């Protein structure tokens, strides 16, 4: 039990973070794409495609972040102070963006809240990239404490990851809008999806080369024999998905672009997992070392096992209720 509990929890937290990235990814992406809309009406449509679901999407972040304290307190205690400023900026940006959803429809200063929505979404995404970049770079730890500086996370590498995430969420947002809109709006996002995809592929290539060059351990994991046999499917599949996505966009498919974009994110996430497993705090603290006492992990597991089906069911249900295209002038406001 003591060996498996941390594994189960790593799975749950991993799922929470991934669900968050996917789901808040596309609705943050809609904020990122806000300036490209032609009119305020088009922005209304864009917002309405995610309005019923976005805050459900964000609850996964709390599950990931709050869960970390309960089950991997050491990871929480090292990562949070190390990423003090990116996390601060992310929280502030998410607050702005969240209230902009409502206030934009209710205020007379529609443009102003629209700008807040765009800025908040983009900044939140970029700072999530900085968090990821800081995570990949690893943390300076002494005993059980982070002992590095407040800006250790800052590097060209983490800035590139931040930009990559903006492009990636933008792609998710564009393909989501292809799925959820029609006519001129849909055309616009077909046109936008292509350069976003190109940027995303470029970033994937850059990061895939840069990371192993910088971190010998990660290079060994990917390129040593026989590991390379087991992990090779990840880059190969990624290339396949990227090609299929180019093709789907060219053929103006409606559903595939979004699903394939999710696929790209899944593969990227798997790649990260392969690079770092079983460390929860890079470079060298494992899930077992960071785990809470097993009776603490067990207590919360009971609650989560009861809750998780409810969240998944309700999430699925609300997507089902709000399926289909969103048209101008439609919406619940």
């Amino acid at each position: 039990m003591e060996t498996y509990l941390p594994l189960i929890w790593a799975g749950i937290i991993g799922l929470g973070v991934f669900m968050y990235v996917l789901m808040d990814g596309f609705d943050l992406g809609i904020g990122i794409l806000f300036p490209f809309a032609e009119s305020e009406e088009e922005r209304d449509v864009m917002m309405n495609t995610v309005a019923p679901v976005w805050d459900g999407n964000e609850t996964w972040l709390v599950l990931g972040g709050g869960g970390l304290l309960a089950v991997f307190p050491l990871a929480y205690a090292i990562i949070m102070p190390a990423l003090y400023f990116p996390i601060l900026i992310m929280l502030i940006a998410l607050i702005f963006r969240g209230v902009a959803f409502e206030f934009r429809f209710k205020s007379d200063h529609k443009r102003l809240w629209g700008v807040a929505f765009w800025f908040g979404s983009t900044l939140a995404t970029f700072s999530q990239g900085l968090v990821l970049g800081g995570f990949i770079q690893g943390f300076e730890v002494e005993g059980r404490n982070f002992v590095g500086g407040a800006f250790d996370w800052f590097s060209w590498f983490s800035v590139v990851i931040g930009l990559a995430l903006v492009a990636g969420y933008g792609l998710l947002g564009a393909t989501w809008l292809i799925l959820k809109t029609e006519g001129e709006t849909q055309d616009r996002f077909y046109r936008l999806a292509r350069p976003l995809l190109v940027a995303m592929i470029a970033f994937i290539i850059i990061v895939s080369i840069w990371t192993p060059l910088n971190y010998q351990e990660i290079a060994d994991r990917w390129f040593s024999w026989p590991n390379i046999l087991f992990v090779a499917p990840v880059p190969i599949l990624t290339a396949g998905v990227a090609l299929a996505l180019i093709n789907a966009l060219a053929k103006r498919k409606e559903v595939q672009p979004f699903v394939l974009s999710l696929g790209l994110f899944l593969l990227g996430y798997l790649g990260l997992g392969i690079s770092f497993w079983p460390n929860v705090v890079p470079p060298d603290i494992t899930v077992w070392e960071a785990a809470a006492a097993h009776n603490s992990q067990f207590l919360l597991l009971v609650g989560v096992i009861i809750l998780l089906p409810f969240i998944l069911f309700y999430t699925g249900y609300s997507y089902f209720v709000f399926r289909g295209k969103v048209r101008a002038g439609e919406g619940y406001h």
Partner: protein
Amino acid sequence: MELDPVILSRIQFAFVVSFHILFPAFTIGLASFIAVLETLWASTNREVFIRLSQFWTKIFAVSFAMGVVSGIVMSFQFGTNWSRFSDIAGNVVGPLMGYEVITAFFLEATFLGILLFGRNRVPRPVHVFSSYMVAIGTLFSAFWILSANSWMQTPAGAELVDGRFVVTDWWAAIFNPSFPYRFAHMVAACYLTTAFVVIGVSAWYLRHKRHEDTARTAFSMGLGLVAILAPLQLIIGDLHGLNTFEHQPAKVAAMEGHWETQEGAPMIVFGIPDEEREMNHAEIKIPLLGSLILTHEAMGEVRGLKAWPKDERPPVAIVFYAFRIMVGLGFLMIGVGLYSLLLRKRGRLYDSPGFLRLCTWCLPIGFIALLAGWFTTEIGRQPWIVYGFLRTSDATSPALTGGNVLSSLLIYAVVYTVIFGAGIYYLYRIVRSGPGEGGLFGGLISGKRPLSAPDVRMEGE
């Protein structure tokens, strides 16, 4: 001047948590009020109850959303600023806070959506049931978070192994010695806070002769609750104080302003504590009453602050004043409650201009008393973060500098002012537009987004 990351982290935590607590405290009371209104509507079919329920549900929705937004920030504070605490006490407080999150999710993912948007979509009993579940859900959330807080005040059921707490008995840890008292005291405080908002808003309508039907009903219900609960809160508070006297006597000494250990201690009604000279200026005191309240004996021994070394005493002045603010407002609440009974008996509850004015002014007193109470208990347990085991100064994140924390504190201050300023203005607009406008059964189902429930615009036409 050297910036101290510990004191700045404390200020930041106090700021974000004080802001946060206002919303859950209000919604805990409001959820129960709405459940009562829904029940009355279901059993009497009187329209006034559904109008009231719909109106207060709009207010509930916005307040709940504000609580969620400010709560997300809280879930990161323990890591960013209090990493030593997270590592040392994570085994205990982690799961308790985890359960708080789980309950809140469960609530939001299921019944809140039905309560806010489902009136026309589900059978009436299901809607009433949802209002109960939301009310119970908010109480469960309070249960877990107060359990975690109480454990930090009166730790139990855990032992230190290699410098970190490990739970030996969950039951003892969750139901630690101060928890039942703190929970009862806090829930009563939440109900009183909400009651005074309901009373204040209704009094405002009555004074301006608007929505008088609904306002009368809400006014009467709110004052009825206050008449019963405010005196009861005095008793609960006294019991909580006795519990604190047993487990955290230094806190009580600061609350009372006692410096010397004495038998037959006086009750100091007012004074100006002087920590340098270890005495109070301008004391007004009632002999023996201090001992009588705390030990229930006129000559009982009450320990004074000098019984503890200076580095184990809480800051005295702020605890002393905050405690008096809380108690003073408590007596004001009792006064309002009793006076309302008198007016009710005379049949003049709704048309005494002076009383209506008083009630309007009393709108925020619950919030103020609540914050004063939290300042008393949280500053009063200093210098400990886990009482008797871990000092607050040993609990912050070692890598943080004072400059780091100062910048985040300033950012939080600016952003909270803007965002919550807008939110509170929005609440004000809802109150201005009042109940019973915009149709009885408005609202399409729109997921579970509390802020979208009210159909009120933010600016004037």
